[in-house]
């Protein structure tokens, strides 16, 4: 699974970090960090994170 985030869209809402903390986190500067190739067993959590992104900036490929 490949995860990309459109950083032009991302506004660091942090909802993804609540939905899938194994993959997304907001660092101490308040900016998004994420694992762009998470394990397949995290797919449900990543799909959930993409759904709850307020600006729909998360894309999941294959």
């Amino acid at each position, binding site marked *: 699974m490949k995860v990309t985030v459109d950083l032009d869209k991302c506004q660091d809402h942090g909802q993804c970090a609540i939905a899938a903390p194994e993959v997304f986190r907001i660092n101490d500067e308040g900016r998004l960090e994420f694992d762009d190739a998470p394990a397949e067993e995290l797919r449900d959590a990543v799909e959930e994170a993409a759904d*709850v992104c*307020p600006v729909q900036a998360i894309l999941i490929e294959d």
Partner: protein
Amino acid sequence: MAAHVVVAGAGMAGLRAAERLRAEGWDGAVTVVGAEPHPPYNRPPLSKEVLAGRADAGATALRRRGSVEDVCWELGRRVVAASLADRALTLDDGRRLAYDGLVVATGLRPRRLAVPGPAAGRHVLRTLDDALALRAELAPGRRVVVVGAGFVGCEVAATARGHGCRVTVVEPLPVPMERAIGPELGEALRRRHEERGVRFLTGRAVTAFAPGAVVLDDGRTVPADVVVEAIGSVPNVEWLDGNGLDLSDGVLCDDRMRVEGRPEVVAVGDVARFPNPRYDDVPRRVEHWCVPADTARRAAATLAAHLAGRPLDDAPFAPLPSFWSDQYDLRLQSFGMPALGDRRVPLEGDAHALTGGVAMAYHRDDRPVGVVLIGVPASRHRHYRELVTAS
């Protein structure tokens, strides 16, 4: 005919319901009927990026899971009547659509001011087309009167200032956004708006429209090239009339999102009035951004289990409402139901000045039921969210 689920409404709630039905194992036909011509899109950017001109219409499209590729989309079509006893709907082109399962996802439409006067220059903001029509009217120096100082009204005011418009907000209550976040933060945000040049006329109501102006209840006339009515929303439920349902404020549901007496009919999103045991047993409609996805998950589990003859999930349904608002450079994030609080407890920052981050808890019976954060970095949101989920 093969088993068929119809989703009435193609907003975020309708899309998420279709996706969750697939996730719950429903592999029969699904038809989604949507009144707007657009595929499902995200509404919050309409009053922000789209109205500001920073995002085009296409940027608001919601991501669709691959599981709904075989769904039949009937867009630009409206359900005008339902016979729940016959399990059949009537569309606005006269077609009859039979169903085995029905998802009510018809959402809301803007409430309009019931006052006399010409309709020219009057706008609302609910749909993508509304936002594009309003955006075309916003230009430097134009006089914009926003009626209603809720979140939509205040976001429109901020965005219109960004276009260089002269903005007046008319609100019957004394403080903007007071019902949602209380007087302290409402006053602080009002000052921020006033610093940016927005004029508030609070404690005032509009009694009439005149050509190029609105007339207030104190007799004053306020010039207006553009009027935006932002006075709340009305549930789209008329198509369900005649079926014996409680439609007094949206569609009354149980905690499985089923409408009364119809195990094959569920409701989702803004139109659904449901109890949340996190707070009490009072069914409420909740117009928060997370509600479509949360109710769709519950409703789809209920409907898929019913159609497959499986037992229903016994877990309680207690979603945590949340929403956000962007006004100028301020981000407001809410978790829980601040409006249910009877007492406000400052947690962090200077709520008067709104400098740095501000956090306010809302207590009911000495228990935090909501928290509102303004300018607090997202890295600290989880901490405050847990404050209202732990209790």
